[in-house]
């Protein structure tokens, strides 16, 4: 059974193309309803997110037919998107799905959302009984995703400024909830980081802005307290985390101010994030005490970069998981390949034996029960002994791609036609027993 994937993603196609050919949930449902009518499709699952649209198809349907189907579903001419497509078959297709599920193919390396999207896509297809022979493949893909997140740290470590601020604060303080954060400047950046902090459960957030109304607006959103911009020092003293993001052209927190504000508390852990360019906090502030950490935009970029490297290191482990799971999956697939050949061969022999035995016994009506049994045993033993060596050899070919052609030869030689339910295969490797 051939398994193929056709699709496009954020790496191969620009947004204008992706949005035109992506399928809405309704269109996906429609596809599943129609799939019985599309010839040579034994199973289909469509993964469609904002970053990718992919058709996973089992069966001997050709690429052209899949594209035709895609055209019908979206109403977009294939000429408009064919240049952005990738198309993988069998091993490459499995590997692709495993990489997608693990987040290796995502825009943000190692993100976890895609795993949920793959799972949803599979469930939806399953609800329409459209998955067919793809069940095992998706089962393994979800397993890869699960193992990825439990065994590696690929989804850890922030890759955006807002997350990095929260992450650094956690590295210093651990639990953020009992802390006080002071956000100076309620512009775009201040708002963004304020939201991140609030989302991480910081109990007490104070907001200051030169235009008081803007501070009030942000404070309301974050359930925070707005204070006057003149009261910086008092509020700095209370705060464990200080975020500055004003558009001031000169530092709003000078060393002298900080010295007064932190007087007697220089050993207390305190994290200042200066997200403004030009900087809002004089760099000398960091030297006021051993408990004071001051990070500016470049420092944060450095952290994000280090995190990216960390994720890339973890990606190597993920690749290893994918290789392991792919090997197990292919072995299972191989076993089911030869399984069906063995089954058909044995069935055929048994059919012949029964038919010929029946004819022979009809011509020998005078046999006693014991004689009949002897004849029957003799036929069975002949067949078994003849096939035994063949069965042993065929079993040993199961996982060997080079031997796939032998299996095909056995089929040709004995003219085996499968009467298993999934009789679509024309691939040399023969049938896949599916439905796990």
């Amino acid at each position, binding site marked *: 059974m051939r398994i193929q994937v056709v699709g496009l993603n954020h790496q191969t196609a620009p947004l204008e193309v992706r949005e035109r050919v992506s399928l809405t949930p309704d269109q996906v449902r429609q596809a599943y309803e129609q799939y019985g009518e599309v010839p040579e499709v034994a199973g289909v699952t469509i993964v469609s997110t904002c970053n990718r649209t992919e058709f996973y198809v089992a069966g001997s349907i050709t690429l052209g037919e899949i594209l035709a189907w895609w055209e019908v579903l979206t109403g977009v001419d294939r000429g408009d998107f064919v240049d952005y497509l990738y198309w993988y078959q069998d091993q490459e297709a499995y590997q692709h799905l495993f990489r997608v599920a693990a987040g290796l193919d995502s825009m943000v390396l190692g993100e976890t959302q895609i795993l949920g999207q793959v799972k949803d896509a599979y469930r939806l297809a399953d609800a329409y009984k459209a998955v067919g022979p793809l069940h095992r493949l998706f089962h393994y893909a979800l397993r890869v995703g699960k193992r990825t997140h439990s065994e590696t*740290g690929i989804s850890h470590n922030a890759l955006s400024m807002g997350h990095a601020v929260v992450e650094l604060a956690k590295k210093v303080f651990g639990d953020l909830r009992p802390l006080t954060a002071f956000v100076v400047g309620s512009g775009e950046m201040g708002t963004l980081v304020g939201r991140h902090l609030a989302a991480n459960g910081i109990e007490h957030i104070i907001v200051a802005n030169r235009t008081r109304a803007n501070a009030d607006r942000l404070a309301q959103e974050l359930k925070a307290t707005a204070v006057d911009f003149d009261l910086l020092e008092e509020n700095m003293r209370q705060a464990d985390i200080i975020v500055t993001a004003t558009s001031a052209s000169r530092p709003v927190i000078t060393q002298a101010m900080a010295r007064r504000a932190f007087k007697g508390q220089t*050993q*207390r*852990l305190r994290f200042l994030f200066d997200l403004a360019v030009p900087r809002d906090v004089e760099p000398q502030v960091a030297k006021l005490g*051993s*408990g004071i*950490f001051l990070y500016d935009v470049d*420092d944060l970029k450095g952290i994000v970069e280090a995190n990216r490297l960390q994720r890339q290191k973890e990606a190597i482990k993920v690749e290893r998981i994918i290789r392991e799971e792919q090997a197990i999956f292919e072995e299972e697939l191989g076993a089911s390949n030869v399984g069906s050949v063995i089954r058909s061969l044995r069935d055929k022999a048994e059919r012949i034996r029964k038919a010929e035995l029946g004819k022979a016994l009809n011509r020998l009506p005078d046999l006693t029960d014991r004689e009949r049994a002897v004849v029957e045993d003799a036929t069975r033993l002949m067949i078994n002994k003849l096939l035994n060596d063949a069965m042993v050899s065929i079993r040993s070919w199961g996982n060997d791609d080079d031997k796939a052609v032998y299996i095909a030869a056995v089929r040709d030689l004995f003219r085996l036609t499968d009467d298993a339910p999934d009789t679509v295969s024309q691939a040399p490797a023969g049938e896949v027993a599916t439905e796990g």
Partner: protein
Amino acid sequence: MNLFLSVMTFVGYLMASVLYVGALYEGRRERWGRYGVLAGWAAQTIFLITDAITTHGLPVATLYDWMSFFVWLMISLFLVIQLRRNYTHIGSFLVPIVFLLWLVSQFLAHHNKGTALSATGAWLGLHIVLATASYAAFLFAAVFGIMYTEKERELKNKRVRLFYYQLPPLDEMDEVGSHLVMLGVPLLAVALVLGAYVAKSVSGYYWTWTAKEIWSLVIWLVYAGYLTLRWVAGWRGHRAAVYVMLAFLLVIINFWGINTLFPGAGYF
């Protein structure tokens, strides 16, 4: 049998030391490190029990015995902590230190007289166990101090590499370190009082101004000083971490220096 157990302890702790340090770079090594610790710990436990049975007492009579016991206690505490909290990375610092202590102890003379405890009985035993437990708490505190300063260094330099990713939050390490000292100070206080009581029953004096006694008192004062500075002067973080590291140096001097320089009567 004893040789086998010693070799097993050696191999177990050595393997654990290497793997726990390696676990900082590659987390999967931690599991085999733990097996190594467990193997060494099990061997050492059997060793100590057989030793205790043959000598009819706590196996803490000589410096060799005592250090071996101390190592055993440290590893036991480490295993207990691992059960409760995921402080795997203590192992990366603690296990190598403890392994070295154990190794050094193996080269000390261990003519086990087996009589040390019988004379003064349980009080001496309790004195030694409490003092040992307090030292164990101080060593753990020092390990937290090391971890704190390493992680702090990366954060200050803004070049995050290893400890940034692996170690617990600074604030938490600071807290745990101070809790350990809070645990160790009263334990050592009780141990000192018991020691004086035992000394009275042996020599007739509570306090004889031996180097050992003075040094133990100094250690207690140093750690009590830590708590005072923390509570009164608000010492935290970096300073507190460096303080517990230096303070443990005093304990190490107590281990070897005093016991080798002044090998008089007394206990450890």
